């Protein structure tokens, strides 16, 4: 356990070094990247200027939808290359496949979390709308990371056996954007569609984040136990798959 923590710590530092280097802004990019993307999306919709049902602030709505989506997409899109990019480190017996993926995703989580906090502080100061239930918001982000991590484990397993994931994952995350729930609220939908949408676990997570931000100002629909079930299943399957994949992996 102690060894595992040491390894994950070392891998995280190394990942930080290789992804952001030590030049110019360096590590700041870690959170500037999601912040800039989130900010631009918010700004574009502000400028287009159509209002939202429930009279929600346009910029806030798009930013708190986009940042958790950025986390999901970042983790999932980077999963197929996780093992290949770190294969030489498997020469060290204490470095395991889950360690490698955990280190990468912790970094991704920290980056998006930092960007989220920065924006919420900014919105708080400018619009005087502070998150009504910060704990719920954090929990929503945390479960999003857990869900994305579980998916990433399974994709990493697949990447050991086929290149298909490498080729398909960007396409799938792109096409899935409209149904993830990042940019619609469940109460906007007709009842039939609401039921269908709530099969999708990410829909619950975006609703949780919004419930954390808006409180009872707008109706939100989510079932924490349902999402927790998804997170647990994906992670257990992913861990089991990685055990198998490690045996078959040609380093």
């Amino acid at each position, binding site marked *: 356990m102690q*060894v595992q923590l*040491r*390894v994950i*710590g*070392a891998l995280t*530092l*190394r990942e930080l*070094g*290789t992804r952001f280097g030590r030049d110019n802004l360096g590590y700041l990019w870690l959170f500037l990247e999601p912040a800039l993307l989130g900010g631009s999306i918010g700004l574009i919709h502000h400028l287009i200027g159509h209002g939202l049902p429930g009279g929600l602030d346009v910029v806030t709505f798009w930013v708190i939808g986009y940042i958790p989506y950025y986390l999901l997409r970042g983790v999932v899109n980077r999963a197929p290359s996780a093992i290949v990019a*770190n294969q*030489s*480190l*498997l*020469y*060290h*017996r*204490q*470095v395991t496949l889950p360690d490698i993926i955990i280190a990468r995703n912790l970094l991704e989580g920290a980056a998006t979390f930092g960007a989220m906090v920065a924006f919420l502080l900014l919105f708080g100061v400018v619009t005087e709308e502070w998150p009504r239930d910060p704990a719920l918001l954090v929990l929503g982000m945390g479960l999003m990371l857990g869900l994305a991590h579980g998916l990433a484990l399974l994709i990493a397993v697949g990447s050991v056996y086929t290149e298909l994931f490498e080729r398909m994952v960007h396409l799938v995350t792109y096409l899935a954007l409209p149904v993830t729930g990042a940019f619609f609220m469940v109460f906007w939908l007709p009842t039939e569609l609401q039921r269908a949408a709530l099969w999708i676990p990410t829909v619950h997570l975006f609703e949780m984040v919004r419930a954390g931000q808006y409180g009872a100002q707008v109706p939100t629909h989510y079932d924490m136990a349902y999402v927790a079930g998804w997170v647990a299943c994906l992670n257990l399957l992913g861990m089991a798959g990685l055990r198998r994949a*490690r*045996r078959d*992996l*040609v*380093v």
Partner: protein
Amino acid sequence: MIRLHGIHKSYRTHFGEREVLAGVDCTFHRGEKVGILGRNGAGKTTLLRLIAGVEHPNRGHVERGMSVSWPLGFAGAMHYSITGADNARFIARIYGKPLAETVEYVESFAELGEYYRMPVRTYSSGMMMRLGFALSLAVEFDCYLVDEVIAVGDTRFGERCRQALAERRERSTLLLVSHIPETVRAFCTSAALLSDGRLTRYEDLDEAIAAYRAA
């Protein structure tokens, strides 16, 4: 002590399953210097990788009663997009060694000059090999797994490797794979022959070399 129990390893190729190791049983005791002789493609490197735990056997298992290095050769064990010094820091962190000392030790042993602070992907293969060897000495394993390339390398460094390993003679175990009997003679006190997927130990070095030449 390292013990191999019925090790089988095969790889999937375009021509179907290819068995490389077909049931290897062997014990290596602490302090032994064993040369493993085998022709090109006999499975020497595969055997080393399995002993190190880089890859896993299809059947059988490896019992490690001491700390075992990664297989020392041209490739592996480092990250190529970061500097030699950063690799030393990474190794120090995962093996729980003091950072500053490790970085310093590797710098002085590998003699990479200013390349030490440049990304590993800019290194020549000789430089990579020196870095890898220095990193493994910094960790201080009980058993070193050495691919022959290190011994062959440029002569001055080869000599220093020999010295470093000799200094640890009492404490450390050495498993060296090679297809050159002279290399084995220079480093080892006993030998084993790997052919047709099986490993045969010989107590006497000359006997092993004779058997290798006859095969």
